[in-house]
């Protein structure tokens, strides 16, 4: 009797877990691969909340407004039809999490509370203290564990995904993965593969991301032919605290709950923050953006901080550091709403955020771009057909992507609290799509010749052999520092073409050097140096995609900013003013040229880039983003 088609899910964060759930519920076996026990995935670092229009705050919030905020937040760069489904599904997703037992914060009557987040005017963010991601991750983890107990899900934890196995026609028929304990490579058959492997923040050296968020898995399938979209769109979160090992996120909820961002009005003011009177403080976000104030979107806030620190010279201690002040709130309120992160700040900084302003600066935080995924448009609703094998399908047949490693929903900038939503939703959609795919499949992985698996395994074994027989002197950990410096130096909050050319040149050299490494550990047992060496090679390849996309895009959009091409909103002018209308005409002309997705195809000497039209049928770009 023929066995049932099987799906492999790689990555056990929110996206991967939800995909796993959907496939298991549909009655198909799932193998779930993860670098570590799935419960430790980076989704647990998301703090502030998850967006969904529940309209429980008497503000007449609407799903349409969520759609508008998401599209405009992303500066129109996202394909629009799937955003419609995302926002429509959000309230149901929250209800489902509630049923799964998530400890959402409550109002006095026991119903779900919602808070304010950036880039929106309504209280739309459901939250569980300041550890929302952890709580949602655990709920999904528990549901998957229930299926695991029934034998419907098999976990491979402490396994590293190395590549997809492609048949003669270039269709994905399985994967190769390395057991991170005995370091042996194995090939696995599957009728569909879903990547939910998360972000790539480590490419920028230090970021707010977990130490395993290297983007290596996405880079590997990119190098095998999957297209990568919008790589240059990297979110720099305005409120992080600096560290040797990572930059720790201070949730946007701090701003949502009334946190005020400021610097002393006088450069070099050495007084303690609490000694500086209110009228000698410069609340620059409140002054420049009175309509949204401190809750402008992240890209806007990060650039404003740079304006203050780099161009006005007002950063604390001459650095890109400013104050995030919550001290006007009572301790009890803060403990309840933001306790988790304020305690973390206290632990790592040794300072008391309940009585002292927090010191923050912009840090790499999220990748809007990722593996290019498709969707089937619904002619009737203008959205996406809810279940279809084209949804979240990569350009490699049989390979799907969900979560931060995909490129959907967020365009040029992601709104706060939309990532837990998109991770969950895309996991659902990709899981359903993979089921639709395997139901309609004509040729099974079992019919694929052994040679395809043997050859791919051999290719991976060869890479390991080469890395563990030293060919040069490069230390993989030192290469990572250099990569980070290059990316933070030239591909950061503010970019220019001269710097980007230097970055591209520097990355090329790094890529060559990464071919001649010398590991301090050449053993065959739990060899973390080997795993890291492989990852650094793949990170450099993806860094080139990011830098090249940034170099070619001569405009400002969302998180991507080049001063040379900035279209400035005329100060003090609004809709109807001739100056504003003139600006709007220029903005539209720029959209005609640049409102396109950047699509990268791998080639041995660096990425080849083309641009692809965006479907803007849901909300045509008639109005520029304006948060004043």
């Amino acid at each position, binding site marked *: 009797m023929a066995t049932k088609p099987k799906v492999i899910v790689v990555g056990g964060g929110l996206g991967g877990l939800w995909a796993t*759930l959907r496939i298991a*519920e549909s009655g198909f076996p799932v193998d779930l691969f993860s670098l570590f*026990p799935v*419960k*430790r*995935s*980076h989704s*647990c*670092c998301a703090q502030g909340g998850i967006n969904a229009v529940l309209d429980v705050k008497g503000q007449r919030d609407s799903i349409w407004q969520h759609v508008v905020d998401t599209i405009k937040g992303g500066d129109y760069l996202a394909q629009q039809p799937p955003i419609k489904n995302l926002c429509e*599904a959000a309230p*149901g*997703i929250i*209800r*489902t999490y*509630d*049923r*799964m*037992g*998530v*400890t959402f914060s*409550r109002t*006095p*009557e*026991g*119903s*779900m509370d919602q808070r304010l987040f950036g880039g929106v005017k309504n209280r739309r963010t459901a939250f*569980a*203290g300041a*550890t929302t991601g*952890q*709580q949602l991750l655990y709920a999904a983890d*528990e*549901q998957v*564990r*229930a299926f695991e*107990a029934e034998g419907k899900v098999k976990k491979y*934890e402490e396994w590293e995904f190395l590549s997809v196995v492609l048949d003669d026609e270039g269709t994905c028929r399985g994967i190769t993965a390395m057991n991170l*304990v005995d370091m042996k490579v194995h090939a696995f058959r599957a009728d569909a593969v879903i990547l939910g492997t998360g972000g790539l923040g480590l490419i920028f050296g230090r970021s707010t991301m*977990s*130490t*395993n968020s290297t983007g290596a898995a996405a880079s590997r399938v990119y190098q095998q032919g999957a297209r990568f979209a919008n790589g240059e769109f990297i979110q720099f979160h305005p409120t992080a605290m600096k*560290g*040797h*090992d990572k930059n*720790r996120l201070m949730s946007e909820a701090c701003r949502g709950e009334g946190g005020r961002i400021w610097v002393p009005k006088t450069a070099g003011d050495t007084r303690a923050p609490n000694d500086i009177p209110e009228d000698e403080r410069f609340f620059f976000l409140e002054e420049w953006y009175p309509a949204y104030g401190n809750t402008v979107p992240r890209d806007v806030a990060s650039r404003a901080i740079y304006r203050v620190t780099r161009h006005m010279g007002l950063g604390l201690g001459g650095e890109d550091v400013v104050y995030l002040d919550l001290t006007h709130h009572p301790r009890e309120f803060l403990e309840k709403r933001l306790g*988790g992160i304020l305690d*973390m700040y206290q*632990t*790592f*900084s*040794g300072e008391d955020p309940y009585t002292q302003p927090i010191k923050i600066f912009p840090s790499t935080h999220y990748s809007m771009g990722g593996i290019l995924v498709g969707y089937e448009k619904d002619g009737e609703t203008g959205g996406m057909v809810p279940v279809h094998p084209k949804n979240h399908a990569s350009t490699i047949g049989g390979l799907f992507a969900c979560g931060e490693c995909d490129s959907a929903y967020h365009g040029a900038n992601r709104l706060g609290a939309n990532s837990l939503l998109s991770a969950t939703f895309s996991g659902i959609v990709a899981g359903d799509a993979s089921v639709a795919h395997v139901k309609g499949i004509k040729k099974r992985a079992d019919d694929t010749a052994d040679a395809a698996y043997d050859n791919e395994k051999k290719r991976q074994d060869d890479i390991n052999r080469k890395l563990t027989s030293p060919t040069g002197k490069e*230390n993989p*950990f*030192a290469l990572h520092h250099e990569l980070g410096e290059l990316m933070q130096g030239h591909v950061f909050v503010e970019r220019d073409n001269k710097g980007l050319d230097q970055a591209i040149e520097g990355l090329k050299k790094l890529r060559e050097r990464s071919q001649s490494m010398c590991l*301090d*550990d050449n*053993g065959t*047992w*739990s060899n*973390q140096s080997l795993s890291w060496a492989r990852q650094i090679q793949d990170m450099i390849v993806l860094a080139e995609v990011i830098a090249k996309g940034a170099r070619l895009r001569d405009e400002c959009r969302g998180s991507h900013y080049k001063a040379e091409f900035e279209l400035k909103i005329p100060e003090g002018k609004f809709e109807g003013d001739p100056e504003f209308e003139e600006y709007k005409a220029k903005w539209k002309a720029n959209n005609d040229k640049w409102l396109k997705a950047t699509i990268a195809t791998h080639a041995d000497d660096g990425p080849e880039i083309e641009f692809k039209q965006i479907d803007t049928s849901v909300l045509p770009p008639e109005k520029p983003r304006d948060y004043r």
Partner: protein
Amino acid sequence: MEKEIHFKIKRQQGPDAQPYWEEFKMPYAPSHNVVSALMYLREHPTNTRGEKVDPVVWDCNCMEEVCGACAMIVNGEPRQACAALIDDLEQPIELEPLTKFPLVRDLMVDRQKMFDALQQVKAWIKVDGSWDIHRHAPLVSPKVQDIRYLFSRCMTCGCCMEACPQFHEGSSFVGPAPLGQVLLHNSHPAGEYDKEERLHAVMGDGGITDCGNAQNCVKVCPKDIPLTDAIARLGRQTTAQWLRDLFTN
């Protein structure tokens, strides 16, 4: 002399190898934690005898004390290494792997036992499916929510298991962390429907009665989860369940 950070690390190449201590020194910088220092050492893996050695192997991920990966014994205490600030630690800083779990290599252990225990106690809420049924769970009072939130932050790091004298290789005791999860799930309005099943899972051999009330678990929990309160409450619930079982059978 320049300030240094001095480590004494218990190493072991693999489960069957002999353990040994190795010392490392590195330049001091403010606001280092144990993991950021280990990251420096993996790039410069030279011990105090001047020998170049294999970089130390350890687990980490979030670096914010929410993922539970980097638990190890730091100066005799089980804790998250990322939240152990060098400035707060007496030197030489002694690092050892958790001892209650099978060793993989150096500071890395296999905590699969804990995840198996979550399966054993059925630490999940039964739902009809992952689809929307167009209504929320029943209301939860803010008071109950506050208590549930204390337990829902358990990151399965294993510190409480390490500190518990009753949890070890020779015993079948499920350990404090999974017991906390029983209380968490039994206190949800829908999770309550399966309360009996979860209580039965911790009533037999290796269950709640194996707790020796040493109170070590609460002392080391990095999230201050009131594990002993949970165990006390569960103790009352299981007694009541035992009586109910007696009368219904």
